């Protein structure tokens, strides 16, 4: 026990030494560390390390490497070229596609330390140098200025032999901006940056990368100043805006000045109604009664003196059972005014303008079909008031016509029928076979200068007129004769043209040949079957003009008609030709009166008959 204390004192000394040595600051170096290895061109490479703690003593570092598949350890050939704590491997020392096992040893007096080994294959650590000769310029094309950036490849990289393939990237920003805009340029060595802002300063940088490897560092920035310019497009638009504003102002001012004429042009005034006596002001005032009162023509409707003279429709009978009813239309208000207005006032003229005075057959006995057609009110112009001693038979002497009150108004027609046992059957389009009494035939319509000769035979179908005034007889006459004749016959209605009215109020009419064809014959007066009113006698006799045409024989009709209508008149009008009623419609007319005046329009123009 106590005699041999061999190891114990050594141990104690060693422990003491160890414990005491830190106080002196010396130690083995800390472990270095290999930072990275890089090859700029895939032909050489460099490794850098980081020294560890040196332990207070001068420490040396050594790099050793070993190739894959070999145990031979080599030391770094070049510690200088790449700087401090680096090792540069030249071309001769560099092998591609071979793993290098690299480690760094730090050693000082106190000891050594070895770094962690690093395995490196040179092809995977390629990081080229930065591109070179970066140039930026401002160019212009149609759309404005743009930046063009040109550069060169790093000199060390051998792309010519295909050993390295580099791709480039550039970034641009305004000097005062924070964020960069990056663009990939591929393998080309230029790039165009479009639409830079005018007047700004730009910075440009470029870098490159091998097909698999690391990006190079950015080049030092190149500054470029954009010149001030106005974009052509913008200036053009400003010009356009200014000019258009000027034009708009001019246009507005012109419109303002020529307000009224523009308004007139754009919104033409609505033409007012051309109604005599129509006063727009009254209408605007909103008093309709006043306005309508203003329209009232004094003296219209005709007073009761003429009421019974109004011929609504004339019925003409013949002994051949043809019973015709003449329908005449009455003019309404305007026609009463004056004949002067007849030329331009066509209101109410329609009835007279129609060449066909619809006549309808009347069948006395059959009272079923009693259609007394009352087509408006016929206004037979009568002579002026002077010639009218008999209100029932006004005549035209001086050419003035007056309105005939309609005899054939509806209530009156009922009276007809009451008085006529057989009743009157009015059917459409019945040609009146009228016995023409009066040789005086004159047209009324369209011929203002011939208005003087109108003679109404008041009961032409006047018998109607007379019926009112003289009640009975004629009607009977009328009734009887056609009764026998018309019973067996079918109702055929034919148009007749009233040609004249003789003094005895006999309506001289010319029958129409065919009711369907009145229209074509309108223009041809001579060929017409219409009866033209030639004159109106003082006795309210309508003198019909007998047609010269072959196709009509007025006289025949007239006689029949008149005979039926009013045999009295026949007797009275001996001086006038009588028409034989037995003829058919198309019997050629016998000699017309010399003084028959053929008018172009044989219709009774009631507008002419205005006093």
């Amino acid at each position, binding site marked *: 026990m106590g005699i041999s204390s061999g190891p114990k004192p050594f141990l104690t000394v060693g422990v003491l030494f160890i414990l005491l040595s830190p106080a002196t600051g010396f130690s083995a170096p800390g472990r270095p560390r290999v930072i990275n290895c890089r090859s700029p061109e895939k032909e050489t490479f460099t490794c850098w390390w980081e020294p560890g703690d040196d332990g207070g003593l001068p420490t040396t570092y050594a790099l050793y490497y070993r190739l894959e598949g070999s145990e031979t350890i080599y030391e770094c050939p070049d510690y200088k070229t790449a700087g401090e704590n680096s090792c540069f491997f030249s*071309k001769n020392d560099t092998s*591609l596609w071979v793993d290098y096992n690299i480690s760094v040893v730090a050693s000082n007096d106190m000891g050594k330390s070895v770094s962690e080994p690093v395995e490196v294959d040179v092809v995977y650590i390629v990081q080229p140098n930065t591109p070179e000769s970066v140039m930026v310029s401002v160019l212009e094309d149609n759309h404005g200025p743009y930046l063009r950036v040109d550069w060169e490849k790093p000199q060390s990289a051998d792309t010519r032999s295909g050993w390295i393939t580099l791709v480039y990237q550039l970034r641009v920003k305004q000097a005062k901006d924070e964020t960069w805009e990056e663009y990939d340029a591929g393998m080309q060595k230029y790039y165009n940056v479009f639409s830079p802002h005018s007047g700004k300063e730009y910075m440009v940088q470029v870098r490159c990368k091998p097909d698999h490897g690391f990006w190079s560092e950015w080049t030092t920035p190149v500054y470029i100043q954009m010149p001030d310019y106005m974009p052509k497009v913008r200036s053009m638009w400003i010009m356009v805006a200014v000019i258009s504003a000027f034009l708009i102002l001019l246009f507005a001012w012109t419109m303002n000045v020529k307000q009224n004429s523009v308004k007139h042009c754009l919104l033409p005034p609505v033409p007012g109604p051309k109604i005599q006596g129509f006063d727009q002001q009254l209408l605007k005032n909103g008093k309709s009664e006043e306005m309508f009162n203003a329209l009232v023509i004094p003296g219209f409707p005709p007073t009761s003196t003429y009421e019974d003279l109004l011929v609504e429709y004339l019925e003409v009978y013949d002994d051949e059972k043809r019973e015709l009813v003449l329908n005449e239309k009455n003019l309404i208000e305007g026609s009463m005014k004056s004949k002067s207005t007849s030329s331009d006032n066509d209101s109410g003229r329609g009835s007279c303008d129609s060449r066909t005075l619809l006549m309808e057959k009347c069948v006395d006995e059959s009272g079923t079909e009693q259609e007394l057609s009352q087509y408006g009110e016929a206004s037979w112009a009568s002579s002026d008031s002077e010639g009218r001693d008999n209100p029932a038979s006004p005549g035209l002497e001086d050419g003035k016509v007056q309105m005939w009150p309609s005899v054939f108004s509806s209530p009156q027609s009922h009276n007809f029928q009451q008085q006529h046992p057989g009743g009157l059957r009015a059917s459409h389009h019945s040609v009146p076979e009228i016995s023409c009494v009066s040789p005086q035939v004159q047209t009324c319509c369209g011929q203002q200068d011939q208005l003087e000769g109108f003679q109404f035979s008041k009961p032409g179908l006047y018998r109607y007129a007379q019926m009112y005034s003289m009640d009975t007889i004629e009607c009977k006459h009328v009734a009887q004769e056609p009764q026998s004749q018309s019973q067996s016959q079918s109702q055929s209605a034919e148009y007749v043209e009233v040609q004249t009215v003789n003094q005895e109020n006999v309506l001289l009419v010319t029958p129409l040949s065919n009711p369907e064809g009145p229209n074509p014959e309108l223009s041809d007066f001579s060929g017409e079957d219409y009866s033209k009113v030639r004159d109106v006698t003082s006795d309210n006799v309508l003198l019909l003009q007998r047609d010269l045409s072959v196709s009509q024989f007025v006289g025949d009709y007239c006689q029949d008609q008149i005979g039926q209508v009013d045999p009295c008149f026949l007797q009275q009008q001996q001086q006038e030709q009588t028409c034989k009623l037995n003829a058919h419609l198309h019997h050629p007319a016998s000699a017309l009166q010399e003084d028959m005046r053929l008018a172009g329009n044989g219709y009774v123009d009631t507008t002419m008959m205005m006093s």
Partner: protein
Amino acid sequence: MLEMSKTVSWLTLLCVSVTVRGAPAPICPHGHPGCQAISLADLFDRVIQHSSRMHGLSSDLHSEFEQYFIPNKIQIGTRRCHTSNIVTPNGKENATKLAEEELTEVILKLLMAWGEPLAQFHESMTQHADYNIYSSNKALEMSDMVYELRNGVQKVAEKMQLLGIISNLLNGQDFLEGLDAVDSSEIFSVDYPNLLHCFRRDSDKIQSYLKILKCRILPENGC
């Protein structure tokens, strides 16, 4: 008459289809009219693109497998690829010193060597359920690409021969079959990370050699 024409047309169709299904004809054999020849530049571009794609796939797979396999220290030191016996230039000078024929030969050797191992690799991948489907697809594509690239490089070689750029490759078809025979005797490592490591390197070699070849023969296009 109509039936005869129909029969004739059917026959011609049959003949055409049969000839089409025959042995794959080389691109534009001598004097063949109406054949649209692909230029050598286009051929080179295609094969280089193919090789680039192949290398990308190998890199992806390698990094994926490194996650699963911790590299063994021993393995690192003793890593050995089955293609190590193929002599390949390991530097720019060495590569540029080689003639076009030799370069082409090296490329073809490498491509031939990797056809079988990659097919096996893909097959074994699909058998393991825990492997990622995307990795399996990549392996399949990579394997297919090796074959396509081999065909492409052969076409390039033929074209170059046609153009007189290179003299006859060593025995043509026989040469290639000889390569096959060499490779089949190798036992391929089941160590997939190692396999992928080796293939990644070799695909990079192929790409580099092709680029050198192209820039030497056609210096204008992007070199």
